[in-house]
C-alpha cells in the first residue's frame, strides 16, 4: 500500500486493554502505534450538567451502539445488546469503575467442575497478582483494605468511596445475617491524581465522569502513553490485519474522516478491540492461509462468549436512603455465596453487589425494574414514598462459557465504512438460570434483614428484556492450555500467529462473578511486560510455543 508507516508494536483499540498495553510498552522504550476508530471525548460531552441528564441515558449515553448510532460505532445484530463505546478510552468511557479482582478459585474452574466449556486458566491468581497491583496504582484505586473474603490487596491510592445511607443500610442487613460483605473497590479517585479531580459523589457514574475521577483510560493511561511518544491515531478503523509467511505484518485501516486507507507495518500486533470487536476483526481478516479468519484454525474465535448472569433487584425501604448520592453501581458487595456448593443444584456462585439509583425522573420511571409511578391521582403518593428510599441489589452470577454463545459475522449489515457487523448470540445456560433464581432469594433475604421493605421489583432472570444486559463481554478469544482448547497461550499469543497477541476481555478464560475490567487490564499489563522483555524471542518465533516451552519473563 502506498501510504504506510512502520512501528515496533501495533495496538488495535485504545480502550482498557489497548491503553494499558501501549503505556506499559512505551514505558520501556518500545515504539508503539495505536489505532482507534473513535475520537477523544470532551468533558462537556458528559450529560451531568444538563437538565435532561437522566433522559440522555436513552440517547447520547445509551450503552448500546444500536441506540446511540454514533458514526464511530458499529451496530450489532443478534439477540443481545452489548455495552460498547468507541473512542479514546473505549468502553471505559462508559463504565462505572467497579474494581473487584477475580478470586484464586476463579482461575481453576476446570479443575473444580469443568462443566460445558469450562477450562482452567493457564495462569493462577498468584501469577496475576503483581500486575493487578501495578494496574491498581496506575488507575488510582479507591479501596478499604482488610476484606476477609479475598486475598490481601495493597492500600489504595485513596480510601474507599463512602457508602452513604445505602451502604449503612445494606451493611446492617448483611451483618444481621452474619454474611460476608465489604465496601467496594472502585476505579474512582477519592484523592486527586495527575490533574484528575477526586469524586464528589455526584451519583451518575454510568454517564462517564466529567471530573475524570473515574479511571477511563483517556485520563488514566493515555496522557502518560502520549508523553512516552505513542503514536495514537484516532478515527482509524481497522479493516484487516495483514500477514505474510505465518506472521502478522500489521493492519490496514480506514480514516473515517476522509475514507482513505493506510497501512501500519509492525513487528508485533496486539489486538484489544473488546470481546465483540476482536473476534469480528479476526473473522474479517480471513485471507490466504487463514480461510476461516485469523487465529481461527480451531474454530474457537468468537465462541464461549460470557456476559455474567444477572438479575437486578430493586428494594424500597421505609426510611430515606438518598441513593442519588455516591458511586452508582458499586457501593458494597457480599460474596457469601461466591463458591460452588453442589447441594444448591448448580455450579459457580455470585456476588450480591449493592448499587444506588439516579434522580427523581428515574425514580418516577421505574428505577431499574420498570416499577413506574402511576399517572394521575396516585402519582404523588407513590413518588413521595419511593424517591430516595431505594437500594439496588445486583445478583451477578458467573455464567458458564458455552461454545454456542458466540460472535459471528453478519454479512447483511455493514457499518459506516461498509464493513460487515458482528452478530451476537447468547442463551443463558440452565445452570446459570438456577444460580440466579437462588441468588434472587438471597438478595431478598438481605434486603428484608436490612428492612423494613415497603416495595420491591425485579428484572427477572437474565436482566432487562431477557438475555443478560451484556455490560460485561468476555471470553471470545480465550487464553488456555493447548491449541485445541483456546485461541491464545498463557502469554496472550495466538496459537496460529506467534506475533499476534490478544489483550482484552476476550482473553479471559472464565468470567468469575465480578466486574472484569481490573482483571483484563492486569492481563494486558502482564502481556505488555512479556512483550517488552521477550521482544527478540517473539519476533524470531515462527511457531507459537506451548505454555511449557514458552520462555518465561
Amino acid at each position, binding site marked *: 500500500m502506498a501510504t504506510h508507516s512502520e512501528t515496533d508494536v501495533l495496538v488495535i483499540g485504545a480502550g482498557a486493554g489497548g491503553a494499558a498495553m501501549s503505556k506499559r510498552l512505551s514505558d520501556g522504550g518500545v515504539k508503539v502505534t495505536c489505532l482507534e476508530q473513535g475520537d477523544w471525548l470532551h468533558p462537556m460531552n458528559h*450529560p451531568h450538567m444538563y437538565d435532561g441528564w437522566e433522559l440522555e441515558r436513552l440517547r447520547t449515553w445509551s450503552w448500546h451502539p444500536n441506540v446511540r448510532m454514533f458514526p464511530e460505532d458499529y451496530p450489532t445484530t443478534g439477540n443481545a445488546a452489548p455495552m460498547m463505546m468507541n473512542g479514546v478510552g473505549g468502553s471505559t468511557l462508559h463504565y462505572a469503575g467497579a474494581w473487584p479482582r477475580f478470586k484464586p478459585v476463579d482461575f481453576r474452574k476446570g479443575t473444580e467442575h469443568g462443566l460445558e466449556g469450562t477450562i482452567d486458566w493457564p495462569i493462577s491468581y498468584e501469577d496475576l497478582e503483581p500486575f493487578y497491583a501495578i494496574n491498581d496504582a496506575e488507575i488510582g484505586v479507591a479501596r478499604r483494605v482488610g476484606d*476477609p473474603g479475598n486475598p490481601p490487596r495493597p492500600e489504595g491510592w485513596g480510601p474507599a468511596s463512602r457508602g452513604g445511607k445505602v451502604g449503612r443500610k445494606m451493611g446492617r442487613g448483611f451483618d444481621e445475617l452474619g454474611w460476608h460483605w465489604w465496601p467496594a473497590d472502585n476505579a474512582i479517585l477519592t484523592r486527586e491524581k495527575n490533574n484528575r479531580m477526586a469524586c464528589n459523589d455526584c451519583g451518575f457514574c454510568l454517564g462517564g465522569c466529567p471530573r475524570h475521577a473515574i479511571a477511563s483510560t483517556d485520563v488514566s493511561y493515555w496522557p502518560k502513553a502520549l508523553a512516552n511518544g505513542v503514536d495514537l491515531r484516532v478515527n482509524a478503523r481497522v479493516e484487516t490485519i495483514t500477514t505474510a509467511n505465518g506472521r502478522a505484518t500489521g493492519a490496514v485501516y480506514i480514516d473515517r474522516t476522509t475514507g482513505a486507507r493506510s497501512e501500519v507495518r509492525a513487528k508485533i500486533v496486539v489486538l484489544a478491540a473488546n470481546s465483540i470487536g476482536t473476534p469480528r476483526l479476526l473473522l474479517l481478516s480471513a485471507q490466504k492461509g487463514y480461510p476461516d479468519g485469523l487465529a481461527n484454525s480451531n474454530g474457537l474465535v468468537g465462541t464461549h462468549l460470557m456476559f455474567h448472569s444477572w438479575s437486578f433487584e430493586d428494594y424500597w425501604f421505609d426510611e430515606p436512603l*438518598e441513593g442519588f448520592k455516591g458511586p452508582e453501581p458499586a457501593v458494597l458487595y457480599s460474596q457469601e455465596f461466591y463458591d460452588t456448593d453442589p447441594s444448591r443444584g448448580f455450579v459457580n456462585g455470585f456476588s450480591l453487589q449493592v448499587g444506588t439509583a439516579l434522580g427523581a425522573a428515574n425514580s418516577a420511571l421505574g428505577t431499574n425494574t420498570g416499577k413506574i409511578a402511576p399517572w394521575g391521582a396516585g402519582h404523588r403518593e407513590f413518588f413521595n414514598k419511593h424517591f430516595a428510599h431505594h437500594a439496588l441489589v445486583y445478583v451477578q452470577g458467573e455464567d458458564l462459557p458455552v461454545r454456542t454463545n458466540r460472535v459471528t459475522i453478519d454479512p447483511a449489515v455493514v457499518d459506516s465504512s461498509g464493513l460487515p457487523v458482528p452478530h451476537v448470540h447468547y442463551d443463558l445456560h440452565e445452570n446459570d438460570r438456577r444460580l440466579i433464581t437462588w441468588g434472587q432469594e438471597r438478595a431478598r433475604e438481605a434486603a428484608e434483614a436490612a428492612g423494613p421493605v415497603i416495595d420491591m421489583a425485579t428484572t427477572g432472570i437474565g436482566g432487562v428484556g431477557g438475555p443478560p444486559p451484556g455490560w460485561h463481554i468476555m471470553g471470545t478469544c480465550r487464553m488456555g492450555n493447548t491449541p485445541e482448547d483456546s485461541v491464545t497461550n498463557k502469554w496472550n499469543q495466538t496459537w496460529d500467529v506467534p506475533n499476534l497477541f490478544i489483550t482484552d476481555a476476550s482473553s479471559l478464560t472464565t468470567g468469575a462473578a465480578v466486574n472484569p475490567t481490573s482483571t483484563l487490564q492486569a492481563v494486558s499489563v502482564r502481556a505488555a511486560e512479556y512483550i517488552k522483555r521477550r521482544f527478540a524471542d517473539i519476533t524470531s518465533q515462527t511457531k507459537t510455543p506451548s505454555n511449557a516451552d514458552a520462555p518465561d519473563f
Partner: protein
Amino acid sequence: MIDVTIRSGSKPPLGGWLPPAALSAPQADVLNAIADELIPGGEGFPPPSGVNVVGFIVRYVAPSGQEAKWYPFLTEAEFARRLDELGSAFVSASSAERVQVLIGLERDDAEFFGRLRDMVYYAYYSRPEVVAAINRNLEAGRDYRNSPQPYGYTDVMDDWDDDLLSRVKGTYTRTEDVVRLPLPENLRP
C-alpha cells in the same frame, strides 16, 4: 451573527435540539393540560403547566427537517398532529373527562402514550421549581440538586459504619485448595 443552531448531524444533540421543535400556543395548551393530568399538582408540588415542561419536551422532539432517530422518536409534525387531534376540546374539558381521554389513549396507543408520559415525567422532575419542592417536602430529598454536577454531594454524604465493618467475616478458597467437586445430579452427563 453567531449561528448557534445545532445542525443535522450523525449524533443526537446532547441536551436536545436548538432551536427546538415549534408548537403553536394551542398545541402547548394541550400538552400542558395532558401534563397536569399525568402529574397533578398539590401537596406542595406545582402543576406541570406552571413550570414549563413544554420548554423541555420540545427540545427532545426532532424539529422540522430532522429524523426522529433517537428517543423519544417523535418528529415535530407528528407530535403537533397528535396534539391537534386532542385540540381545544381536551383543554376545555373537565379533569374527569380528560382522564377518560388519556385512559383511552393509553389503551389504544400504548406506545405513543408511554413516550408522552415518560417525557412529561422527565421534564417535570428536571424543573428547578420541582427540585425545590422535593427539597421542601421530602425528607429523603432535602439534599437533592438540579443536576449531578458541578456540586455533587460530598458535603452531605454519610460515611461507613466502622463498628459494623469490624464484625465482617469471610473466607476464600486458596489456589492450592481447589479440588474437583461432584456435579449436581441434574447436571451430570
